[in-house]
């Protein structure tokens, strides 16, 4: 996995609460058997109408947000299904960081497995980011995971919280399975105990 240390990128807003995984990547695109290539389907039904025409009002279709790598949205982002296709699509589209007041658990967890940093800020802070993004064409944020701060070129300086283990995990781009397998002895011992108990 690609480590996440520090990045600077264009910010794109998706101004909705409860953005669900069906909206992030509709199920007709879950049929691929690869991990890549999902970005083109991100927010599919918000980006294109039935006839396949771009919906110009949707933020990601606007020229000013092309090439964005930081996504801001509202509460309960990523609710719904466990499909990891959702973070795959977000990553494949080019986002490395998602900022919202809250995230659904499975989605939040899935982000870390894919080198995406989800950041929780307060409702007020997120609202402020929305306003700054709207007011400043080309608005960029710098996300520094080492120091857990977000800055823009306009004096903003926010610190954010993140579980230390998760932070290390992203900073180093670790492999989960490898970490667990270091405990092979403990797993084998547990399995022996389990078998003895007849479970």
């Amino acid at each position, binding site marked *: 996995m690609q480590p996440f240390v520090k990045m600077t990128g264009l910010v794109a807003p998706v101004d*909705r*609460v*409860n953005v*669900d995984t*069906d*909206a992030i990547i*509709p*199920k*007709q695109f*879950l*049929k*691929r*058997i*690869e*991990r890549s290539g999902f970005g083109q389907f991100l927010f599919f*039904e918000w980006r294109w109408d*039935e006839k396949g025409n771009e919906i110009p009002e949707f933020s990601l279709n606007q020229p000013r947000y092309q090439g964005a790598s930081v996504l801001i949205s*509202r*509460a*309960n982002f990523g*609710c*719904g*299904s*466990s*499909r*990891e*296709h959702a*973070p795959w699509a977000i990553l494949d589209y080019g986002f490395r960081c998602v900022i919202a007041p*809250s995230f*659904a*658990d*499975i989605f939040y*967890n*899935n982000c870390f*497995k*894919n080198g995406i940093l989800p950041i929780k800020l307060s409702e007020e802070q997120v609202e402020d980011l929305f306003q700054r993004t709207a007011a400043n064409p080309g608005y960029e944020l710098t996300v520094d995971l080492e120091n857990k701060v977000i800055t823009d070129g306009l004096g903003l300086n926010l610190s954010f919280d993140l*579980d*230390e*283990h998760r932070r290390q995990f992203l900073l180093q781009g670790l492999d*989960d*399975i490898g*970490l*667990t*397998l270091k*405990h092979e002895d*403990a*797993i084998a011992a*547990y*399995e022996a105990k*389990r078998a003895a108990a*007849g*479970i």
Partner: protein
Amino acid sequence: MFEKIWNNHVIVAEEGKPSILYIDLHLVHEVTSPQAFEGLRMSGRKVRRPDLTFATMDHNVPTKDRFNITDPISKQQVDTLTRNAQEFGVKLYDLNTIDQGVVHVMGPELGLTHPGKTIVCGDSHTSTHGAFGALAFGIGTSEVEHVLATQCLQQAKPKTMEVRFVGKRRPGITAKDLILGLIAQYGTDFGTGFVMEYTGEAIRSLSMEERMTVCNMSIEAGARAGLIAPDETTYNYLRGREYAPQGADFDRAVERWSALRTDEGAVYDKVVEFDVESLVPQVTWGTSPGMGTGITSSVPVPEQLPTENERKAAAAALDYMGLKPGTPMTEIPIDYVFIGSCTNGRIEDLRAAASVAKGYKVSPNVTAIVVPGSGRVKLQAEKEGLDKIFVEAGFEWRDAGCSMCLAMNPDVLQPGQRCASTSNRNFEGRQGRGGRTHLVSPEMAAAAAIAGRFVDVRHWEFKSEVTA
């Protein structure tokens, strides 16, 4: 109860890191597994415990002419699972077996789900299995790979919440109404970060299948998992099932399971109460499961909602749903009815729907389909003649699968079509682009199919004889 199951399964717990939890049962389906098996192959790893891993195909499969999967990519997923199961030695219930079905219907049916187990599946409705007092949660594909390789999962310990159902259920109120009502009251994220344990007399009196309906939708409240303590209802359901312990082993298991029950006076991180007495049959009006109300109410008026976010969300939802604020729920006409899914596709659900449908005809404006949750449910229903009741009333009788719960197979709504659905999600486009979903119980869905609009099933006139 959660603590006990958790502690029984923690292998490694280090300060500041997620614990490593042993997994007793891993269920696999075709949509979220291909990349996980591919990952194993690429890193030269094996499935550690094929004996604890069971696979089925459900999301993609057609419910008519099922062996003829016309969508090449669906077919590829189904074939990929078949190949992976063979290569890695995993037991697969494919379309040729009677046990094939929606993964969360099949598991309990086979007796794979036991109290006290840790159960995972690459599907968020894994919470269903919590109805047995198992700790069951949905995981992403990376975690599917992780569990395949290690039979363990890294998990931060969730907090606990007691969801106390107060009072008795009135006639005509189903398990689906309990959970829809709860989510309508508290929202779709009040459970985030928690494992919820459902308690109270109304929960105790539910059948095993009804408990599954409640736990199924825990994820719609945002919870990691739902739990119901095991009791006689649980043991009676499990006794004699294929993968349940047999004979004296079963009695010993019951002893062990009974010890899991939450101790008197246990403390939860949070407690919420829900009043069952005043509950009426529920219907959702919006595009999130929390946007629901009683059948006796009306579509809300966004301006009257308390917060700006709610007003915005409700207005957008009503726009998508094509509903006028203030419309009585009973005046909403429908085009489609779907009875099925892991929420309400079990035999009791079909019995309940059939009892409503018996002797009536589906409204000429409505297409109605019944999709059993598994091959076994289908067989049982046919033994009881439920299929005939449905067919005579004008419902289509289909083969087992997820079907219109997420519409990955050919069963899809057309833009603008309005559906009364017994599934669990009413997100935009869930049942097809532009499709409008209202979540209801099987009884309410059947009644809506006949009336062509939503009706209060508490006043339904049941016919005991089928009139030609």
